[in-house]
């Protein structure tokens, strides 16, 4: 048997962790490949998300659930799969991910000695505010929690004040008014009880928070070609399940956060749902073109001059955007 040491997603993402745990426990059966897996959510073993790629390369874990945005610290190229404002719904995000996958995998193999098994989103990242808003225009002058350079660039373009806070500080910050708004997925907000401290939900998605399962190449190459194919088929099923959840669970979490009658599987709260106007969608596109893409171009081309060219041919082509 090939032993597989797996670092999973964060334990507060209980549903994702439950799926992963079950998947890896049954992997030998479902794929027919002789593996023995040991699984731990990443935070349970004290692993920080930005270290994921380095840990994969050094072989601390065989398989890791990676938050692409955080892991992009070591290579901004990966962030290109889901830049702020490029894919504003799950369908267009899936096209972008499929378009970028090959280049992404190549880069991961050559620089971090690891291979892509799955790529999938948590779900749309939307705005939660602790005061009345009716459109993106109302973000002017508000303090909004930001955690990436691209997001700060977008918020500044919108006239908001980006505030950096550690995740554990966001809840009290929203409660006490240190920050006025935070951006996360409806499901994460629900499990983190954000609706307790926020009142208005603007469901305009700025990204999908893409995640992936990556495997150390040395481990991967222990398998025969048939075994690799069998494992890839199993991983494809896992990937599809995660995409389904991003789409379906998000709808229910939105309903529950806003106290709608069809709320089923999440905690019910009473937030006000804000309608998205066409002007808001337009504004996000503007922000992406004017602020997000130029910033990313600078960072990514500094590491690899062909970066934006690759992006234009892949994600850019399906999204109808070009970085000059």
């Amino acid at each position, binding site marked *: 048997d090939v032993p597989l040491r797996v670092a999973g997603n964060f334990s507060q993402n*209980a549903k994702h962790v439950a799926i992963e745990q079950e998947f890896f426990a049954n992997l030998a059966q479902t794929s027919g490949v002789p593996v023995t897996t040991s699984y731990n959510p990443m935070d*349970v*073993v*004290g692993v920080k998300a930005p270290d994921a790629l380095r840990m994969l390369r050094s072989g601390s874990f065989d398989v890791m659930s990676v938050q692409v945005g955080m892991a992009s610290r070591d290579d901004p190229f990966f962030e290109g799969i889901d830049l702020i404002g490029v894919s504003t719904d799950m369908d267009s995000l899936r096209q972008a991910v499929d378009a970028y996958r090959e280049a992404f995998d190549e880069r991961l193999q050559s620089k971090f000695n690891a291979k892509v098994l799955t790529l999938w989103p948590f779900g749309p990242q939307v705005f939660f505010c602790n005061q009345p808003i009716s459109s993106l225009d109302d973000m002017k002058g508000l303090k909004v929690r930001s955690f990436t350079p691209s997001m700060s660039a977008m918020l500044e373009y919108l006239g908001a004040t980006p505030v950096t806070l550690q995740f554990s500080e966001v809840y009290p910050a929203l409660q006490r008014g240190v920050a006025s708004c935070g951006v996360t997925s409806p499901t994460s907000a629900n499990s983190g009880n954000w609706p307790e401290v926020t009142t208005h939900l603007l469901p305009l998605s700025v990204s999908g928070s893409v995640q992936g399962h990556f495997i150390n190449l040395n481990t991967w190459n222990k398998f025969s070609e048939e075994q690799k194919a069998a494992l890839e088929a199993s991983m494809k099923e896992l990937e599809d399940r995660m995409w389904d959840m991003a789409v379906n669970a998000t709808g229910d979490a939105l309903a529950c956060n806003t106290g709608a009658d069809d709320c089923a599987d999440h905690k019910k709260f009473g937030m006000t749902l804000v309608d998205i106007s066409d002007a808001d969608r337009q504004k996000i596109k503007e922000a992406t073109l004017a602020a997000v893409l130029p910033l990313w171009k600078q960072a990514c081309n500094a590491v690899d001059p062909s970066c934006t060219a690759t992006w234009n041919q892949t994600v850019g082509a399906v999204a109808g955007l070009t970085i000059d």
Partner: protein
Amino acid sequence: MIGAGAAFSGFFIMLGLMMAGIPVAVSLFLVAGLGAGLYLGLPTLLIFGNQTWSMLNDFVLTAIPLFILLGEILLRSGITDRMYQALADWMGRWPGGLLHTNIAASGLFSSVSGSSVATAATIGTVALPALERHGYNRQLTLGTVAAGATLGILIPPSINMIIYGSMSNTSIGQLFVAGIVPGLLLMALFMGFIAIVCMIYPHWGGRVEEVAPLRERLARLADLLPPLFIFALVMGSIYFGWATPTESAALGVLGAFALALLRRRLSIVMLHEALLSTVRITSMILLIMIAASFLNFTIGIMGIPQTITRLVAEIGATQLQVLLLLVLFYLILGCFLETLSMMIATIPVVMPIVAFFGIDPVWFGVFLVILMEVSLITPPLGMNLYIVQGVRPKGGSIMDVIWGSLPFAMILLLLVGLLIAIPDLALWLPRLMFG
């Protein structure tokens, strides 16, 4: 996944190393390295650098040196000294005198600090010199500081509660509110114990100083204002939404700095001593925390916390028996894990048990935090013990801190019992406020 036998051997090896006088941090590190080398292979060890950086590069932990520096400046500018004098005027003749002030000050400070570590460092630095000078029983004094500081994670805000809430899908707002009544009750129990002990052994409660004339005592009440100003600054900036808890610590430092300037107590020599002291204490704590997080990483991968939790689950018993088993489990685990790591490692496996037995998750959060408080003041790995030892003005054996904390650990266990008997201690206030 390794067996319970190997896990317990590792534990006894660690204990042996510590007892042989190997530095505590190194003992943790060596056992982690041994486990990793035997069961996980070399690559696992190599990540130590990245992991140490990630663990240290943490704004929330930055509150530790900030709160220590705040305390050092207040201390070295004579402000806390005068505060204690003013309090001594009024409380000196109570049985236990300033020890009560000490608990009250810890409680007050806890309401602005989310961590027991910061509370222990600050109250310890502020209170210990005055207390030792007033002739209080050494062990009782040290125990009061170590135990009083555990209030830091029970009385809101509490970093531990925030982590528990987000991992177990429990309302953090309700958890915060749920900690208030048990926190106040714990203060009352601590003070009751001090009063009783000091009635039995009057000389433990410090010298009974001659009472100053009323006018003088009233005049000295002004000496209570500077610390109250700092508390108001730290607390107010959080409650009015100006700052996060860590940021409020920095405001506290600036406030203390301003007070020292006003009192013309600020000199380069004094400043340097305060800064060096802050660096010394912080790095002593952080070396242990680095090793503890590495140990947590290796035993987490080996599945030891899960193995132990599974043992608890498989025994199959009544709700009460399970709770008592969990008490025992956390007492044992608390011997070799730092509290945050311990919580993070066990919550995912313990929560299914909690749900299975129909235990209220808000109540369990309070229960868990009180057990973490016990762990903070019980050897061999009790963070508060080491911090209080670190800030002791006259040094001495760490056994003084351990013995002094023991009765307070018993009182904490008594509170656990009360909480099991009367769940409403935790649940009444959240029900009142959240419906």
